[in-house]
Structures are given as C-alpha cells and as structure tokens.
C-alpha cells in the first residue's frame, strides 16, 4: 500500500502504535477495576469509562493505519453509538444493583437516595394492601430517561 516509507509514515505509525497500546491498557484497567473494587457500583465505574476511551483510541489507530478518509465516518458512527449506549446499560445495571441492595453501605459516605426509596417502598406496601395485593405500577414514576433518548 505504501511503496516508500517516508518520515510522515513513521510518525503516523508511531502515533497509532501508542494509541493501540494505550487502548489495550484501558481494557486492562477495566479488568483490574473489576477485580479490585469492593462493590458493584465502583466496578461499574471501572467497566464503563475506560471502554469508551479505549475504543476511541483503537478506532483512531485503525483510521490512521488505513490512511483513507472514507473510513473515518464509519469509525465515528461506531464510537458515537458506543457513547450513546454505554451509559444506558451502566444506568440500568446500577439501578437494578441499587434496588437489590448490592452495595456495601459502610463504603458510602452519604446516601441521599435511601430515604426516597424507603418512602416509595412504604407507600407501595400501603397501596398494595389497599388494592388487595395488586402491585402498583411504579415503572411510570421511575422509568429511566435513557431509554427514550438513545433510540431516537
């Protein structure tokens, strides 16, 4: 593809090599975070953030190595979709994790959600008793907004 390697080629190769190694290190960082953090919520931070930067760097190195302009829009689309979807899945997993009490309360310095959830739970049991055991639909009140925006 490149008959005579020039100085520019060497620089581009070096930059993409650095990008590739750093991108791989980001994946390793996610794995280390998964193994070392104490509870689900902190592991979620480790699982989401390095992924986005890692994929960005690796896609950039693909674009640099191929040296054609028409790859960049496809790479951009891939990254944008990643940016749009990663917070959605992190939010859903975190929400489920919080509700199923998958967190170590002694590791939290403050928790301003606990009182709200407690109130909602009390209200729900009261409602449930009044309605004869039927579960009220709480999804309307607490639906994640991320479901609506990301797909449109």
């Amino acid at each position, binding site marked *: 593809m490149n008959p005579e390697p020039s100085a520019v080629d060497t620089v581009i190769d070096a930059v993409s090599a650095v990008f*590739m*190694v750093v991108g791989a*290190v980001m994946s390793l960082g*996610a794995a280390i975070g998964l193994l070392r953090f104490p509870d689900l919520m902190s592991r979620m931070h480790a*699982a989401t953030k390095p992924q986005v930067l890692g*994929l960005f760097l690796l896609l950039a190195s693909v674009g640099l190595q191929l040296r054609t302009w028409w790859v960049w829009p496809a790479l951009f689309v*891939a990254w944008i979709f990643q940016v749009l979807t990663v917070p959605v899945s992190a939010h859903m997993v975190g929400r489920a994790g919080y509700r199923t009490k998958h967190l170590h309360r002694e590791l939290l310095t403050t928790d301003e959600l606990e009182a709200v959830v407690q109130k909602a739970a009390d209200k729900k049991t009261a409602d449930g008793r009044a309605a004869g055991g039927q579960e009220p639909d709480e999804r309307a009140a607490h639906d994640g907004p991320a479901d609506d925006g990301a797909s449109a």
Partner: protein
Amino acid sequence: MMEVVLTVTAVILSLAAAGAIVRIAIGPSLLDRVLASDVLLAIIGATLCIDMAVNRHLNNLMLLVALSIIGFIGSVTVARFVADRREHPNES
C-alpha cells in the same frame, strides 16, 4: 514495529480477558457477572480493532459497528429481569 505492538497488545488484552473471566467465575451476584461479560465483549471489540489496524483491512468494521449498537441490550435485559424478580419480598 507492528509485530512488537501486536505482541504487547495481545499480552495486555489476554490479561484483561483473564481478569474479566475471573470476575465472571467468582462474581458474587448475577449483576457482577453481567458487568464482567460486558467488559469481555469490549475486550473482544478491542482485539477486532487491533486486528484491523495491524493487518490493514476492514473486514471487521461492520461487526464492530453492530457490536456497539446492540451490545448493550443483553445487560439492559438482565438488569430489568433482576429488578423485576426481586420485587417479590419473599425471594430474599
């Protein structure tokens, strides 16, 4: 130079995949395992990228785009399912 980069990234990504698999194996809860498998998917995406960059082809590009569009559906579904299941107070 590309051979060196390929070796280094292969080692790093293998270690990362091993870490994610360990978390899938020991993860105390279902959500931990879902999260770890998400990370494993991202690591696979990273290897696809590195393959394309080192060998200078675009065969995996569409796979990568599809991965980043629909890759999150699995964990969202499981998260929803877990939340629904645990609504019943009897099931600890």
